């Protein structure tokens, strides 16, 4: 009952916003159009653009490129973050030496790196992947570092009393603990991988959703910009749903604290 009610209300929000958008861009009020179509387009044009993209099939190529870039950024950034996070957590001296530099690089707004990456890696996918990696790496790194450091001392003592060697401790205690922290940041890191890809494309590329939006903007095709945004939003929601499914499988052993009620 309540679930149905909720969905009805959620749909209502979308309907009202789109209707308002449509009305304000189409019908003049007291002789003035409050939202000039030149800047705000209108829902029909945007929908037409989206349909046209899918009908002609051009959108698939761009979605594919963005997906590949985000995926590569996520995988490379995660692997790097896990390895370095593990290394630093087990070697406090190394961590202490690198600490100021890690903080410095992490504090840097990553967008400023985009031109450098374009210069180094060209306009192809790798400059976007590199941008995504710099975003994903730090999230995963900090989480794994934390995960290894914050293993419960009791669990650790128990593992040692159960006769575990240093290698077995790694495999049965540190590793699962670090992974659980990494998975708990899965939504954030996947989101940042997409951000890296799209921003990179926007700043200079030949394909991808960011490229599509940038192209439309270049010719004042506001409908195209909005259409690109909608496709991007839908794309992110699909990915997020997939991540949630993966997460549910990987973290079955975790208590569902603060899980949002559907």
């Amino acid at each position, binding site marked *: 009952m309540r679930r149905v009610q909720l969905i009805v209300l959620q749909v209502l929000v979308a309907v009202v916003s789109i209707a308002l958008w449509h009305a304000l861009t189409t019908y003049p009020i007291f002789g003035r159009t409050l939202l000039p179509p030149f800047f705000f387009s209108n829902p029909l044009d945007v929908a037409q653009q989206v349909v046209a993209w899918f009908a002609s099939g051009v959108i698939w190529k761009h979605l594919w490129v963005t997906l590949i870039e985000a995926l590569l950024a996520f995988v490379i950034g995660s692997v790097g973050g896990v390895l370095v996070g593990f290394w630093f957590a087990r070697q406090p001296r190394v961590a202490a030496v690198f600490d100021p530099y890690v903080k410095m690089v992490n504090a840097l707004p990553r967008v400023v790196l985009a031109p450098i990456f374009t210069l180094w890696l060209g306009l192809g996918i790798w400059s976007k992947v590199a941008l995504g990696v710099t975003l994903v790496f730090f999230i995963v790194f900090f989480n794994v570092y934390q995960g290894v450091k914050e293993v419960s001392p009791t669990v650790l003592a*128990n593992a040692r009393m159960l006769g575990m060697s240093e290698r077995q401790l790694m495999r049965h205690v540190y590793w699962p603990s670090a992974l659980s922290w990494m998975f708990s940041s899965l939504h954030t890191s996947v989101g940042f991988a997409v951000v890296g890809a799209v921003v990179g494309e926007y700043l200079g590329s030949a394909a991808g959703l960011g490229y599509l939006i940038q192209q439309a903007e270049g010719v004042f095709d506001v409908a195209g910009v909005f259409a690109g945004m909608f496709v991007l939003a839908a794309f992110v929601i699909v990915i997020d749903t997939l991540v949630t499914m993966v997460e549910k499988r990987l973290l079955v052993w975790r208590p569902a604290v603060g899980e949002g009620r559907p």
Partner: protein
Amino acid sequence: MAEGATATARNNGQAMAVALTGVGVAFRLAGGGVYTAVERATLNVADGEFVAIVGPTGCGKSTLLNIAAGLMPPSAGGVDIFGTSLAALNRQAGYLFQADALFPWKTALENVAIGLETAGTPQAEARARAQSWLTRVGLGSFGDRYPHMLSGGQRKRVGLAQVLIRDPKILLMDEPFGPLDAQTRQIMGNLLLDLWNADRKAVLFVTHDLEEAIALSDRVVIMSAGPAARVIGDWRVPLARPRDISEVRLDPAFHELHREIWHMLKAEVIKGYAQTEGV
């Protein structure tokens, strides 16, 4: 009167399972001073003997247990395990912790089996033995549950199976039933005694609950309030085995001993409170 049951295990000349001799524990304070937590504690546990340590909060009972486990070196004195000086981790001991010590990412069955698997037992055999241990602690059908899906008492049962499956010669227990409610504690106490009766390991059981200590053990050792806590009393429990925890509390001998020990313990508890309140 009930000495017979334990006397067999206490042959003269046989090495003590655990022998703490003049053990002291001191911590260096940040300010430069030294805090003496335990001062020259001497304590012996014979093979097959169930010894309970009782003392006020903060008297260093758990510290003594960690020293016997080899998790922490003493600042003074020596630890001998079956006549051999203990230098590293005590490989002959199983340790049941006060806090949750199960691996949260492993199922109950995997948690119990892990101690065998790390020792090189093939997985299938380890799992089969883990299953039979789960059945022994009354959780036969809970093998695929993760720790967070179990109640506090059930987690303690899994912990008990996890430790006992490795068949340690010595069992160290740090207020293992502390966080449980009164009924569950009694049930767990009886379960422990049943399991212990099967092969009589040496047990060092730390608790602050005097009744629990008398009901379970062969000997009750009393520690004074810290700092510089010492062993100040050592009583033999004259109750017959096998015991039932809830019935043994009705025994006049139980009351007699309880009154006697409590008389001494009370003063220490008050001292302990004064210390913690005063800080």
